[in-house]
């Protein structure tokens, strides 16, 4: 081992808004061993790991990893293939719709492995983790333990020198946890040089590590081997040792938690009863015939891994989900979703964080106090009491989403008990909460149960918490394995601890992947070919493209919308939008009522442009009916019109046109004048027998490209560009921002994929989908709307290819500015709608726009594709006439890509 330390940190600090996550850390992490970073949540463990892995940007201080400065992007690029990083959260870097194999294959491709190498490695990893039978199962359908194993496999695919695991076993059942650590040990035996850096909140796990870093409040409490730490603090186990290491003020008031025995005061009255509860989702049985009875004041625990049906059972009890079979009752009343009164007596804390992230701690508490209608005078007092009780004082004005996980859970607990419920249903309330706070919380629970008679139904995957329950049910795969007091369960299995008892039950039930213990040790594969990191790699690009395509294919709704949406909109717009002004409603105020005036009116009502409405009687009515929009045109024929006409006294007809919609008014005026002159000619011919000379020259108007002057021929080729910018841009923007929201963007930070590969790789599938909808649109135009394609289809296709590339590029650019999917959505909709409808020449040519509109028009891709689409469809133009527009369109592609590239970061800020 050449390196003595794998990472060296000097004076490192990190702040999120006002809260310091890391406070002047100096740390030397030895190489080649298993290093644990222990401490509760929110003390800076994750931040520390993110800095070491290069995922997060360094704010202040010096971080050296694998003999180089992590500030240097060149060094980061070079060592990136030597580091593997597995972020916190179950399967956070995995793609849930992809199968186990596809996930692994994606990562292997990112590290530039050849096909044979990939398959060999994947087979080996799957074999040794016992995931081989689940090779084709989507990652989203794996249990928590299996997800973590898969995450580990993905991290190990490239034989890293430094493996960084951020809380890998949180929320995993004990059997899977045990298997996970066995796996890590086997891997370390095989590749001895590998350093493993693990953050964990489970102290029992940390006892098996080589070297530990105990952290609290962004500072390091102590470092050393577990043995050293225990002797230094004079404790028998690490849990106690850690508490001893904490500063004095934090330890104050902490003592060994003792659960007083239940005084059987409320014996006999049942708080919760469930019999044969079953829930099926399609053909998947989430909960299978679960029955239990919980007495008032009892603490009843559900012990089981993630995804074993605990949550679903709890939701059925709260009425959130109707049971497929069986029944449940609270206080003797069957669970009814409409029963508001019962809900006042129940407190519920759902799994994961389910408060309003954007509200502050105080606002969240106040909101819930108000919604439960606590007496007005007591609200503030109760909120303050909760803040005090759950030690939220320093976070009061902080938005909840900015809080560390552990603190957020505490807040959720506070919210759940704010209205002093009679039953508390808590779904994994303490996962991620530090031992001291957890004990404090249990103290509160015990107090509620023993002194106030509150019934507590809690699910957990912590053994020591389960031991504190009066009775527990062991759950696995939707079934209750057994149900009894913890002591009785241990006795039944004749083992020492509850954990061992549970593992025994699990093994008996034939838990998934329990065959891992088979000692398959395959010799490590020697990497044949290492992609030079940093250089542009088509393999990595296609790896992203492939993955995105698979994800899109697995999301039938998104795909259908993307393909059918355009076609549907085309129907609507093609038939609906018409700029032909027809069927204008008009009415006449005929003050003459002579044959002459009626003759004039008849001439108008005979036109296809006008539709006659009941006649007008006076000016006021004219005014009123035009105001309501009922009439677009009103004629007023003066008294004595007929007499005057005969005597040649030039009577004047007055016409009012509704000017609210200027375009329609202009067109209407054209019609009115045209018909007037036509009538005069006609009249002259009839009465005088000859045409009077009213003009000296003829004006011959030739409507070109669209002889019938039907708007469908003009509009349909214009709608194609409109639709081909909307949907591609939005799909694209969401595609990137979605990764940001779900967390899989970490793969961009932690793997050698470059920003350009990431962007282009993600763009390709959307270009493909958009081209398919383009062909659909053209087919619709030609075969359904009957708009002939006069020019070259090839030219149009090429133009469309440029155009959708630019459109998706626009989506990429927008995704760089937006953090949430909702914002990306709004931004893309506004940008594409506004610019393409108004400024791209859809209704008016860009050459007649002014100011900012003209500028946008010239700088917007739709403008150029519109010219192409119209030119090729209606004017039979080809490359030679349109090459300028092709070039302009093509120029958008590098510009947009470059801009997105500049705005995308390779590190988290």
């Amino acid at each position, binding site marked *: 081992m050449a390196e003595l330390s794998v990472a060296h940190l000097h004076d490192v600090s990190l702040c999120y808004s006002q809260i310091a996550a890391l406070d002047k850390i100096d740390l030397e992490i030895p190489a080649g061993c298993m290093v644990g970073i222990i401490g509760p949540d929110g003390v800076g463990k994750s931040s520390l790991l993110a800095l070491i892995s290069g995922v997060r940007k360094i704010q202040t201080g010096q971080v050296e990893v694998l003999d180089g400065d992590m500030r240097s992007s060149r060094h980061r690029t070079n060592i990136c293939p030597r580091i593997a990083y597995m972020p916190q959260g179950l399967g956070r870097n995995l793609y849930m719709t992809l199968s186990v194999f596809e996930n692994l294959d994606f990562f292997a491709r990112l590290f530039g492995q050849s096909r044979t190498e990939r398959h060999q490695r994947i087979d080996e990893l799957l074999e040794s983790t016992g995931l081989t039978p689940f090779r084709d199962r989507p990652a989203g359908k794996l249990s928590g333990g299996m997800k973590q194993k898969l995450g580990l496999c993905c991290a190990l695919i490239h034989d890293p020198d430094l493996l960084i695991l951020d809380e890998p076993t949180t929320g995993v059942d004990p059997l899977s946890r045990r298997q996970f650590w066995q796996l890590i040990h086997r891997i370390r035996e095989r590749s001895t040089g590998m350093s493993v850096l693990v953050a964990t909140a489970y102290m029992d796990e940390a006892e098996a590590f080589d070297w530990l870093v105990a952290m609290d409040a962004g500072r390091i409490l102590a470092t050393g081997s577990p043995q050293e730490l225990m002797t230094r603090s004079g404790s028998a186990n690490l849990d106690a040792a850690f508490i001893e290491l904490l500063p004095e003020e934090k330890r104050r008031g902490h003592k060994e938690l003792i659960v007083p025995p239940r005084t059987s005061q409320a014996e006999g009255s049942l708080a919760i009863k469930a019999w044969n509860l079953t829930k099926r*989702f399609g053909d998947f049985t989430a909960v299978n015939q679960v029955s239990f009875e919980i007495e008032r004041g009892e603490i009843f625990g559900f012990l089981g891994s993630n995804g074993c049906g605990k949550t679903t059972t709890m939701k059925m009890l*709260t*009425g959130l989900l109707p049971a497929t079979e069986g029944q449940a009752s609270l206080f003797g009343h069957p669970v009814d979703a409409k029963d508001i009164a019962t*809900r006042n007596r*129940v407190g519920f804390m759902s799994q994961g*964080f*389910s*408060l*309003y992230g954007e*509200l502050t701690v105080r606002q969240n508490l106040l909101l*819930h106090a108000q*919604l*439960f209608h606590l007496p007005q005078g007591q609200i503030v007092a109760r909120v303050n009491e909760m803040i005090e009780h759950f030690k939220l004082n320093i976070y009061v004005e902080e938005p909840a989403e900015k809080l560390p996980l552990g603190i957020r859970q505490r807040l959720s607990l506070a919210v759940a008990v704010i209205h002093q419920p009679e039953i508390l249903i808590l779904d994994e309330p303490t996962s991620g909460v530090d031992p001291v706070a957890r004990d404090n919380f249990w103290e509160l629970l015990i107090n509620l149960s023993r002194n106030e008679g509150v019934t507590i139904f809690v699910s957990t995957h912590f053994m020591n918490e389960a031991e504190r329950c009066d009775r527990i049910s062991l759950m696995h795969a939707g079934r209750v394995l057994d149900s009894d007091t913890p002591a009785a369960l241990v006795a039944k299995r004749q083992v020492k601890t509850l954990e061992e008892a549970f593992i025994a039950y699990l093994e008996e039930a034939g838990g998934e992947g329990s065959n891992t213990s088979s000692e398959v040790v395959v010799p490590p594969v020697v990497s044949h070919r290492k992609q030079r990191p940093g250089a542009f790699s088509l393999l990595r690009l296609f790896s992203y493209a492939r993955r995105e395509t698979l994800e899109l294919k697995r999301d039938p709704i998104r795909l259908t*919308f993307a393909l059918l949406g355009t076609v549907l*909109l085309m129907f609507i717009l093609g038939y*609906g*939008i*018409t700029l032909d*002004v027809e069927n204008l409603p008009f009415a006449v105020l005929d003050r003459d009522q002579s044959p002459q005036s009626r003759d004039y009116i008849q001439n108008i009502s005979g036109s296809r442009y006008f539709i006659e409405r009941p006649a007008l009687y006076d000016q006021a009515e004219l005014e009123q009916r035009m*105001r*309501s929009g009922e009439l*677009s045109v009103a004629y007023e024929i003066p008294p004595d019109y007929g007499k005057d*006409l005969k005597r040649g006294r*030039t009577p004047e007809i007055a016409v*009012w046109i509704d*000017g609210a*919609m*200027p375009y329609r*008014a*202009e067109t209407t005026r*054209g019609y009115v*004048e045209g018909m*007037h002159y036509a009538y005069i000619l006609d009249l002259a011919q009839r009465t005088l027998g000859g045409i009077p000379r009213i*003009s*000296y*020259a003829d*004006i011959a*108007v*030739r409507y070109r*490209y669209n002889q019938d*002057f039907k708007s469908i021929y003009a509009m349909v080729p214009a709608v194609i560009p409109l639709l081909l910018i*909307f*949907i591609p841009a*939005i799909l694209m923007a969401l595609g990137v921002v979605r990764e940001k929201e779900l967390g899989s963007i970490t793969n961009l930070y932690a793997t050698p994929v470059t920003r350009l590969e990431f962007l282009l790789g993600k763009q390709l599938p959307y270009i493909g989908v958009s081209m398919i909808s383009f062909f659909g649109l053209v087919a619709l135009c030609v075969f359904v709307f009957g708009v002939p394609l006069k020019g070259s289809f090839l030219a149009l296709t090429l133009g469309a290819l440029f155009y959708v590339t630019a459109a998706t590029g626009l989506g990429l650019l927008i995704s760089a500015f*937006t953090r949430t999917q*909702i*914002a990306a959505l*709004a931004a893309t*909709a*506004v940008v594409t*709608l506004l610019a393409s409808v*108004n400024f791209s020449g859809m*209704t*008016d*040519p860009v*050459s*007649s726009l*002014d100011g*900012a509109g003209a500028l946008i028009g010239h700088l917007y891709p739709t403008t150029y594709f519109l*010219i192409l689409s119209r030119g090729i469809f209606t004017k039979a133009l080809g490359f030679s006439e349109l090459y300028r527009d092709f070039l302009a369109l093509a120029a958008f592609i590098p510009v947009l890509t470059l801009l997105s590239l500049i705005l995308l970061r390779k590190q988290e800020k």
Partner: protein
Amino acid sequence: MKRLANIYRLGVKELRSLYRDPVLLFFIIWVFSGGIYTVATATTQELNNAPIAVVDEDQSQLSTRIIHAFYGPYFKTPELITLDAIDPGMDAGLYTFVLDIPPDFERDLLAGQQPTIQVNVDATMMTQAFIGSSYIQNIVTGEINEFMQAYRAETTLPIGLAVRTKFNPNLTSTWFGSVMEVINNITMLAIVLTGAAVIREREHGTLEHLLVMPLTSFEIMTAKIWAMSLVVLAAAALSLQFMVQGLLAVPIAGSVTLFLCGAVLHLFATASMGVFLGTIARSMPQFGLLMILIIMPLQMLSGGVTPRESMPELVQNIMLAAPTTHFVSFAQAILYRGAGFEVVWPRFLALIVIGTIFFLAALAFFRKSLNTAQM
């Protein structure tokens, strides 16, 4: 009482959440300020700066007069081109109109031979094409008549025609564009904001949290609707006051208060629609696509972009079920034509009916959607 308090509290919560989302806030402000300004000042539905070219084969006094008769703001200064430049110029979309004045035009005219001027119109430019060609005919005829007056006695038509345009005498398109943009933004934002708020709550799991509290779906939905409607209404009112009437100096004919009252009804309908869509869609990306499929036809076919009476009968009838049709109709009546309540009340009534239907549908789906959600 408790219900009202709940609805109030939850609504306040929505407002606080929105306040914390700077991007969304920025967009609300932008669409009602800068967005309206750019649309109003740039779009020209009536003839404005139409690109025109003239082939002058006559080179006479009259042909020069005709050429000089075309000027802004209706037309760009005519470009003088040769005969063989007509096709490429029109193909490239450089000119919407090309006038061809034939050789010896003036001489033939004076000789009374009724010569012909040809006007080529790019009919793919639907908006400009028709209006522009009637302008051109008027201008050319006017010039010729004036020219001829020097030689012949004036002839008058047997019947005079006085055309007046009501409500927008000069047919300034800024008047139309700015107000329509406010109207369209109201619809879009009402749907987007409420729908997204529903989905965000579901994705973050807070919706379940609300449903186990002593709250009803009715309260949760109503709170979202009032809060988001209030935001949009306030933004629209400010926009009408300061952008439309202030900066753009567009006169509003009727009562803004009456319009805002109607807008409340419209917001009720569209925000309910937003909740409904938010309930159907399973994720934010799905909502986005769904929203586009809904908003586009709602706006394009409402009569706000093109006249309703020109649409196929079937489309017109279907669109009667859309809130935007009624909203656009009364908004135009009030804001452009100064109509009062006695004129627009049937539209208000229609919106109440449509809104109630959407609201009830959304309510029915609301809880049901949670039941089908796995985990």
